[in-house]
């Protein structure tokens, strides 16, 4: 989770039970009106913007593999680690990546402080 920059301070927000996101699947949360997709892989939990920059496809519904998710609508693929589009052009927008931790079975999402 590279966006977890040391210098940045974040506020942790509880977004739901870790058990509700099955391994290799994703679910959406809404934080301050913003849709964020949380994914569960064998490396833990990842969170990225939930809306595909292509045509706002629901990324939480995508197929998940080692380190990426594929949008269910037209197949754009993004790295869960960096948020970058895989196999696209250099100017394609990236997804924002958010830190997630599990505390007492709760998923905690880190939102950067203003």
């Amino acid at each position: 989770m590279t966006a977890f920059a040391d210098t940045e301070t974040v506020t942790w927000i509880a977004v739901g039970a870790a058990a509700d996101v099955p391994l290799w699947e994703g679910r959406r949360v809404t934080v301050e009106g913003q849709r964020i997709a949380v994914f569960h892989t064998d490396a833990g939990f990842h969170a990225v913007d939930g809306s595909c920059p292509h045509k706002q496809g629901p990324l939480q519904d995508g197929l998940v593999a080692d380190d990426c998710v594929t949008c269910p609508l037209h197949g754009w693929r993004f790295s869960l680690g960096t948020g970058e589009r895989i196999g696209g052009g250099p100017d394609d927008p990236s997804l924002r990546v958010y830190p997630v931790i599990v505390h007492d079975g709760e998923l905690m999402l880190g939102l950067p402080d203003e």
Partner: protein
Amino acid sequence: MSSTGILVIGGGIAGQAVVEELRRRDAQVPLTMVCGEQAAPYDRVRLSHLLAGEADASELQLRPDAWYEDRQVELLLGRTVTALDPDRGTATLDDGRVLSFEQAAVTTGSDALMPPLPGLDLPGVHAFRDPADCEAITSAAAAGVKRAAVIGGGLLGLEAAYGLVQRGVEVTVVHLVDRLMERQLDAAAGALLLPAIQALGVEVLLEHATAELLPGDDGRVAGMRFASGAELPADLVVVSIGIRSRTDLARAAGLDVNRGVVVDDRLRTSHPRVVSVGECAEHRGIVHGIVAPIHEQAAVAADTLLGLTGPAYEGSVPTAKLKVMGIDLVTAGAATGPREVINADGDSYRKVIVDADGRAIGAVLVGDTRGHELLTDVVKRGKEVEDALALLVEASAATAEDLPDDAQVCNCNGVCKGEILDAVRVDGCASSREVMARTRAGTGCGSCKELVLDLVALATGGADEEPAYLCPCAKQTREQLVAAVREGELSSVSELTAACGAGRDCGACKPGLAYVVSEVAASRHREERHARFINDRVHANIQKDGTFSVIPRIRGGVTTPQELRRIADVAERHEVPMVKITGGQRIDLLGIRKEALPRIWEELGMPSGHAYAKSVRTVKTCVGTDFCRFGLGDAIATGIELERRMEGLYTPHKVKAAVSGCPRNCAESYVKDIGVVGIEGGWEIYVGGAAGSTIRRGDLLATVATREDAIAVSLTFLQYYREHGEHLERTHRFVERVGLETIQAAVLDEDSGEPERLRERFAIAKAACDPDPWLERHAPVNPKQFAELDTEPEPFTVIPPATTPEPVR
């Protein structure tokens, strides 16, 4: 044709290109194309392949007849325009008819240039321009002509010579100047080409001016005399010294004509209503005799005709490639210039030409054409080149990946790299064959085919086509995966991933893996939802806004008033945004939120129609003997039973079936994956039909006497397809790949025991499948199966199952 329409005069590559560019921009404007030749527009470039015996005359047509019908383009074949009046907007045809037009495109092309030689009209002397010339030349070769001469050592002359050598004729190329292809090559490159041509068995006479063609005793051509007085025997002469634009019509119409019909940077002629494109047009003093400029011109001309603004046409950089003969030669732009950088050894010659300002103006590659796409692109753009030698070296190592997206890959059809990548990434083409059919890249002269294959592999993520990998990342074919599941007695996708790595990297193949495991492991299969596309996790089809559609099963398209009432109630209660009759004879509720799915299913009380899955979809029926006065078979009952027997099964791609009561085929059985048709005394079973993006009439698999047999044969075929179809291979491609005879042997030859075994495995699969996944509403696979972290599934009260009303029969 109405006077608001556009008239295209001449159906060559240029006429066709104008029509395609017009239709790309405007589906409505009335379009008529008058084609002087009997054939619909064909690919003249491929006449070289035809002559070399590498193509068939039937393969040349650029677009199938249906293309014109579908796009409402009126073709007048074998008609010529004999007079044109641009002021009045009328054109007179050779049959006396007068067409009126709002605007016109003159695409009359050119004729082969014939020198004013005595003896040119002797039998046995031919141009090399159209299919009739090819036919005449090949039949002369077939009739045993021994020695042929080709006048002209340009690209076409060389290709004609090669075609004749292929047909066992001794050939001499007679050329006026001191090197072959002098318009494209400098002396050094010409010197390298000469031995390569001779090595093919072609004699070459340079600096020979033909003065006269000589008749033999039989009155046919027998040889030629040169200006020097020397003679060369030849009983077939092919003349290929250039082209002459066909401008008579334009000239008589009062348009400005030089060598060609004069056009400006918008391809407009001297009359505002008329544009001109192709070998008949002259732009800034230049008449092009190749295809690439035609596409560049046609795009601008279409804008002009439709009153659209767009980039102007500022000329084309000429390019040349030798095709068919296996000699590597590519040129672009100028052959010589102020600064030249050469990289050569005994076998190859690579040169970049740079102008005084340091911009690339030409490239000549003989013997080693690596990176020619990159170099051609640099020349076409007139890019500044700092270190031309470094550029040459870089080009040698360039791969498909290094090309810019807008670099033209297929010059014949004007297709650039980005369009090829998009065909895979956006339009979902999975193989180079599909990409070529869609974009037409690689279907002209064929010289860019290798690059097209590379680009397709690049876009599909390195997937080699041979073999077809189900998981390209781990390079696993379906066969390998089937073997892994079988040998390891694996029962889930996770186990398969652990065993061979498939599905780990990008995950795109996981649904394919899930199918393989479920098919092989059948009753042992352990379903894992992460391996399924979202549709198969929530048993509904995802829509563009992230909502879903709900299509309950309505077997054979037969419903009841009660069922319709229930559907109507649900739609009303949930304010369903759209209720629609589908093309599959059932009803679709569109725009449903994920969270509402379980409740809606409960209220509908109908099973899933599997309209979201790669599985058995529908069996359409017609009213058959029940009601129809022509009915020969009980289509409704047969269709309903067939659907019951097949439903719930997953398949390599979707499977749609139909049962029609007679060959009038009202249920469209001939174009279904499985189509059953009632005939006098029995049933026919068709397989591999299609009427989606591909149209194909199914192949007759079998004719049987009874309904039971028709169903049995259908199910046996279905199981064979389930076991042998590639992931995402519809039956029409499957049947073509495997061949009907192989399928018939497996499905029908009862003596072999194989049909019986297929039916047994079918029964096991059917018993193991989930006929109604919508019942998961009562026992979700996880608490949030139908919700997000921040939502909950809508609660509902369980409605006791109503006694399913029998369909009105």
